[in-house]
């Protein structure tokens, strides 16, 4: 499927908004919530996570929970939160614009 530029970033940022999650959890959530239509592979998910981390939007940290192997959890930074807010706004405007053009009116 075609992606709006930046939409993958938006997905990830919004998923870690509530609480820190590790990479596998993020990929599972995207798959589940999109009903299987959107899927990230290792080869695309992690470069994206690292890029967001490099920009300072996410912060990754190794966490060891009892009984589990250690995983890297990503949480939203303050800067990431601001970016997410503005991207959400942009996304909504985009959706509203598309709807107007295509004539799909809200009832």
């Amino acid at each position, binding site marked *: 499927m075609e992606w709006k530029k930046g939409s993958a970033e938006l997905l990830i940022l919004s998923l870690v908004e509530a609480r820190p999650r590790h990479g*596998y959890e993020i990929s599972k959530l995207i798959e589940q919530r999109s009903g299987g239509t959107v899927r990230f592979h290792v080869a695309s998910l992690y470069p994206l996570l*690292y*890029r967001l981390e*490099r920009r300072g939007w996410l912060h990754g940290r190794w966490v060891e929970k009892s009984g589990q192997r250690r995983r890297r959890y990503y949480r939203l930074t303050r800067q990431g939160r601001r970016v997410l807010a503005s991207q959400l706004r942009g996304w909504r405007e985009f959706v509203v614009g598309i709807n107007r053009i295509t004539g799909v009116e809200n009832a």
Partner: protein
Amino acid sequence: MPEWKPEILRRLALLRLSPAREAEIADELGQHLEDRYHELLATGQCEDAAFRTAIGELKGEDLLARGLRPVETDWYREPIAVGKDGNNFFSGILQDLRYALRVLRKSPGFTAVAVLTLALGIGANTAIFSVVNGVLLRPLAFQQSQQLCVIREIVPQLTKFYPTFPANLPSFRIWQQGLHSFENIGIAAGISMDFVRRGGAIELPGAKVSSSLLDTLGAYPALGRNFRPDEDHLGRDHEVILTNSFWRSEFHADPAIVGKAITLNSESFEVVGVLPTSFHFPQSSELGALTNFSPRLAFLKPLGEDPSQIDLMGDFDYAAIGRLGPGVSLAQALSELNVVQAQIAKQANEHMDLGAEIIPLASEVLGPVRQSLLFLLAAVGAVLLIVCVNLANLLLARVPRRLREAAIRTALGASRARLVRQMLTESLLLGILGGSLGILLASFGVSTFVSAAPPGVPRLAEVSIDGRVLLFAIVISVVTAALFGVLPAWHIAHTELQDALKSGATNTTESRRTRRLRSSLIGLEVALSTVLLILAGLFTSSLVHLLHVNTGFSAEHVLATDVDLPPRSYSSNAAGERFYDQALAAIRTLPGVLSVGWINQLPLAGEGTVSVIGLPSTNKADVSNFPLADFRVASPDYFSTMEIPVVAGRIYTEADRGRKLAVISQRVAERLWPGKDPRGQLCLINWSGWKTFQVIGVVGDIRTVQMDKSPAMMVYMQDLPFDNVALGGSIVVRTMMDPSGAASGVREAINKIDSNVPITALRPMTEVISKSVDTRRFQMLLALLFAVCALFLASLGIFGVVGYSVERRRQELGIRMALGAARQDLLRMVLRQGMTPVIAGLGAGVVGALLAGRLISSLLFDISANDPVTLATVVLVVAAVALVACFVPARRAMRVDPIVALRYE
């Protein structure tokens, strides 16, 4: 369980990431694939299919690398604990610093001990160095002080008594006119004048100076003006320039004082100027023997030169300071000066030659204090070395624990150089922390030193913490850090780190090499403290010997009262006699007073009048035939009061006044009339002209000038042999009880006779003796302080090392005990191992002390530098302290419960 990492690493290889980053990514992605694999298994796939699907997530050979390349290649942040060589040197150092801070914060006890001992060591060194800097190194506080020199006169016929003399007035005038090598020459002599203020009269120390002196020194009054050349002469000399400190303390820094008059010796003097704070008059120790300047001058006054009294070969009373002309060498100046001196001698026609010497002012300062100060610097340096050794030992003890960390870091890609750098950064950080605290301590130390130091140390007022001292503190902090940090760092760099990873962290045993290293460090500590203790012991014995030296008089129960007779009201001998007669009579009636006498100068309170004495038959033309003696004017009761024994004949009495009788000391009798009875013999003395005296009695020799010099030849007389302004002197009172109890009575009695007579000192005679050995005592106390610090630190070191080794060997000790070793055997074993380096160190220390003793033998009194009693005492003390330091942890070894020890770990 499938292996994911090789697959991931193969794909990452293209990116050439750092091993650390590569490992981290492989870890995370591997975990993801593992999760996926388990999920697939749970859906019922077979292992093979699940593996292939999971690996498929990596999507071909190069997708991962392509995705990561833009993110990873220009961005690589090294994880802080890893220690791989970074690309950026400075960011690496910052990282090391952050890490070092974290390590130090994690062990606060160790950090506190390290920083505190370092602070003490560095602080003490900085304090002593600032004294050395202020006294020995800093240039004198005069403009172009390297051009300044002291000029002294040499009378070849008298060099066996006095190698040099200060200058006399006529010579100075001739030099001023005839010498071209000097830009300027000034002279000065110490004087004191009475100054009356609220609370009574005080004796004010000052100097009479030529109008050229301040110009020569390159100093100018901060207020008012310098003296004018015409004010050098008698009658025009009623002006004073005040020193800054006196102006502040007495006149509250009132600038209006210039132009006003103050009263000195009951005469009026106009204040014409005030010196700047920066002006420090050179002290007597700088200007040479026979000059006498107080270290706390209050005023300068003009020379008061009387042209009618010119004696070309007498009154060598003035310190002369010259400023060499530009480009003139000392040798050039001296040869010109000697030509002029020869002319003066010829003109004087007294059968004596005249020469001169010129010494740079700066080198005069160094003189006798140099050796003492350098010794103190060496001693305090040794203490710092012990601090270093202790810290190195502490750090070495932490090495096994650090080895595991180092091994992990190496495995993650850190180079050995980086590991060493990290370890050195930690010690450097400790050094900097200790150094900063040390500088703080030093500033307290310096003020304590300056206030406690005896008056003999020159330029103490100039001692302060300046840029050079700070630089010194920084350098020793860094060097210290390098010294104690390099051993553990080197050790880590040269250990097979993989072995450290294999064995457990806590059980990593100390290698034999580490143990030997730690033992030799203990040996070094013990050796250094032994040397210091032996030297301090030698100083202590010297002082004890000195205080027990037979002075020839008894100072117990004697009160000494110094009085100064104002010249205006006591302008003749007779006036002085009247005052002393009345004072002695009044004091004699005070309760508790056994006897009372007076003398013009107390023993051990400075040199008095020194002149020649001989037989009437001696050729007067050649003074070198005469020995020199110390002359004193003393009342008849002086001898019984001081309990100076009469050996032969009798003491003069009141009835003998004016009869020119002399009482001599035994050494004079032995020198002039060997084997004969000196009673009734005539002798020739030169005290303001030649006079003949008759010897009436012989008294015991006493230590007159210095405790550590054999008794001088003494001549006592009842009256001054010429009429003069009455002498100041000391009234000595022997009491039944504590002499201090009589002080107020004596003061009252003197005040009642003449309240204008200032009492300049009132103290037990024992204090006079004790003061005369102040310099030695001060030196001894400091040496002892450093030595005890050294011993304390060394015993801490021993305690630490033995305790640590017992802790590490719990298991071994438990096994030995389980196998039947008796507790006593274990105790003996631990003690033996602990004491072996101590004994080696003691041996080395004794050898070191024997060598060092040669360097300080001139500072000792009546004791050899290899005094066996001191050596043996110190060896026993060090051995005993070390034994205790070993015994405490060794007893813990004895209490090890074999079961617990074996279960342990």
